[in-house]
C-alpha cells in the first residue's frame, strides 16, 4: 500500500491557505494577503495589490496640467492636500513658477493640518485593529474638527482640489487663524488622552512591543519612508533634507525611535501630531499678507523636459515624476507612493507571526490602498 511520507517533517498540522481580503474588515479597502498558515502561525504571506487600480497616471496623460489636479485628490483620500501638492510642485518646478509667499504658507498649513487629520484617522483604525474600539471614536471625533477647517477653506471635507499651479484656489477665510489656534489649544491636550488610552495598557504594550521589527537596513532596502522609517532609527524627513516651501523658516523636531517595532511606529506618529501643531502655530504667526495665487493661463504649456520632486506626506515620501513634451498635457506623470513600498514589507515582516500580529503590523504601516494602486 502507498505510504505517504511528509514533505516537511516539522509540520504538526496541515498548512492551509487563507485569503485575507480583498474583502476583510481589517484590510482597509481591498488589500489581499494570501497567507499560508500553520494553525495560527503564518508561514508565508503574499500581498496582492491592484484591486483599486483606477489608472490615475494614464488619465493624467489625457488632461491639461490644471485638469490633473482633481485627479490627484483621488490618489490618497486621507491626505488629498499633499497629493495635490506634490503634483503642483512638479508642474511649478518644470514651468519655473514660484508661488507667492502667502500661498507657500497656506500650503504648509494645509499639509500639516492634513497630517493631523491623517494621523488621527490612523490612530483610530490602528487601535481598532488591535481590538480597542474606543480610540477609534476619539480619533474620528477630532478629525472632524480638522475637516471643518478644510470645509471653511475650500468647501470640501475629503477631496479638496485646493492647490493650484502658482498658488491656491482661494484665500483663507478671515478668521481662519483664530479658529485654527482655538482648535489647537483645545486639541493639543487631548493627545495626552489618546496616549493614556493605549500607552500604559499592558495588553497594548504586549501586542505591539517587539512585534514586526523592521531593521534600518531592511527599511532602506524596501524603500520604506516617512514615520515608518523614522521608527526604525533613521532620522530621514524630506522636510528637513530637501526643504521645500517655507519649511526652512520653521522650527520643528523629527521624532525618531530606534526599536522599529509596531509600538515605535505608533509613538513616532503620536509625536508627529505634536510637531505638526508646533509648525501650525508658527505658520499662524508668520503668515504674510499678499496674493495667494499667481494666475496662470488656463491652457498652460510646459517647456520640454522632465523633473522629479518629492515631499513628506503623512505616509512618507511621495514623489512625482513629470515628463513634458512641450504640450499642454503631461507626457508621463508617475507617482511614487509610500504605501506601495510599505505593502512589500509585509511579506518580510509577517512571516512566523500570529494572525493578530498581522493586523497590528499592517495597521502600523498606515497603508492606504488607493495610493498603492493609483
Amino acid at each position, binding site marked *: *500500500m502507498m*505510504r*505517504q*511520507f*511528509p514533505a516537511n*517533517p516539522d*509540520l*504538526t498540522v496541515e498548512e492551509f491557505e487563507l485569503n485575507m481580503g480583498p474583502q476583510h474588515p481589517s484590510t482597509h479597502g481591498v488589500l489581499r494577503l494570501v497567507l499560508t498558515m500553520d494553525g495560527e502561525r503564518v508561514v508565508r504571506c503574499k500581498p496582492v495589490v491592484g484591486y483599486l487600480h483606477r489608472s490615475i497616471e494614464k488619465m493624467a496623460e489625457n488632461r491639461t496640467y490644471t485638469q490633473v489636479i482633481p485627479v490627484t485628490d483621488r490618489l490618497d483620500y486621507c491626505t488629498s492636500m499633499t497629493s495635490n501638492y506634490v503634483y503642483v510642485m512638479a508642474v511649478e518646478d518644470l514651468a519655473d513658477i514660484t508661488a507667492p509667499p502667502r500661498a507657500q504658507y497656506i500650503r504648509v498649513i494645509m499639509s500639516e493640518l492634513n497630517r493631523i487629520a491623517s494621523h488621527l484617522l490612523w490612530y483610530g483604525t490602528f487601535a481598532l485593529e488591535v481590538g480597542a474600539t474606543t480610540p477609534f471614536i476619539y480619533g474620528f471625533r477630532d478629525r472632524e474638527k480638522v475637516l471643518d477647517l478644510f470645509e471653511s477653506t475650500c468647501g470640501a471635507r475629503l477631496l479638496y482640489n485646493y492647490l493650484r499651479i502658482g498658488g491656491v484656489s482661494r484665500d483663507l477665510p478671515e478668521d481662519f487663524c483664530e479658529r485654527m489656534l482655538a482648535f489647537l489649544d483645545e486639541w493639543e491636550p487631548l493627545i495626552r488622552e489618546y496616549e493614556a488610552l493605549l500607552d500604559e495598557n499592558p495588553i497594548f504594550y504586549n501586542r505591539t512591543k517587539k512585534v514586526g521589527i523592521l531593521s534600518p537596513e531592511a527599511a532602506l532596502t524596501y524603500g520604506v519612508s516617512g514615520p515608518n522609517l523614522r521608527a526604525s532609527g533613521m532620522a530621514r524627513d524630506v522636510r528637513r533634507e530637501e526643504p521645500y516651501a517655507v519649511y526652512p523658516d520653521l522650527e520643528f523636531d523629527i521624532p525618531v525611535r530606534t526599536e522599529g517595532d509596531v509600538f515605535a511606529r505608533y509613538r513616532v506618529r503620536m509625536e508627529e501630531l505634536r510637531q505638526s501643531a508646533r509648525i501650525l502655530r508658527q505658520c499662524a504667526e508668520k503668515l504674510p499678507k499678499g496674493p495667494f495665487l499667481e494666475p496662470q493661463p488656463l491652457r498652460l504649456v510646459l517647456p520640454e523636459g522632465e523633473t522629479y520632486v518629492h515631499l513628506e506626506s503623512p505616509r512618507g515620501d511621495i514623489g512625482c515624476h513629470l515628463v513634458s513634451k512641450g504640450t499642454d498635457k503631461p507626457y508621463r506623470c508617475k507617482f511614487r507612493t509610500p504605501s506601495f513600498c510599505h505593502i512589500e514589507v509585509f511579506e518580510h515582516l509577517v512571516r512566523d507571526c500570529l494572525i493578530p500580529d498581522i493586523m497590528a503590523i499592517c495597521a502600523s504601516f498606515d497603508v492606504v490602498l488607493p495610493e498603492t494602486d493609483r
Partner: protein
Amino acid sequence: MSPIGLNHFLGLGAVLFCLGAYGVLTRRNAIAVLMSLELMFNAVNLNLVAFARFLPNLDGVVLAVFVIAVAAAEAAVGVALVLSIYRNFRHIDLDQVDTMKG
C-alpha cells in the same frame, strides 16, 4: 411498565460495552477507536454505579470516579499518540501503521 431493576442497568451496560467493542474492532481510524474505547469505559462505569446503588455500597461510585480520571489520562495520551502518528505518517489509519512489522 415494569419496575426497573439492577438487571436493566447491567443489560444496558452490556449492550454499550459490545457496541464499543465492535467499534474498536472495526474502525480503522485511530480517533474513532479512541471514541469506541470511551463507550466501553462508560459501560463499565454504568455497571459500577448501578451496583453501588442496588447493592448499597458507595465504593462503586468511588471506583467510577477513578475510572473517569483514568479515562481522562488515557484520552490525553491517546490523542497525543494520534497526533504523533499523524505527524509521521500523514494519516491515522491504524491498519497502515505497521512499520514495526519489518
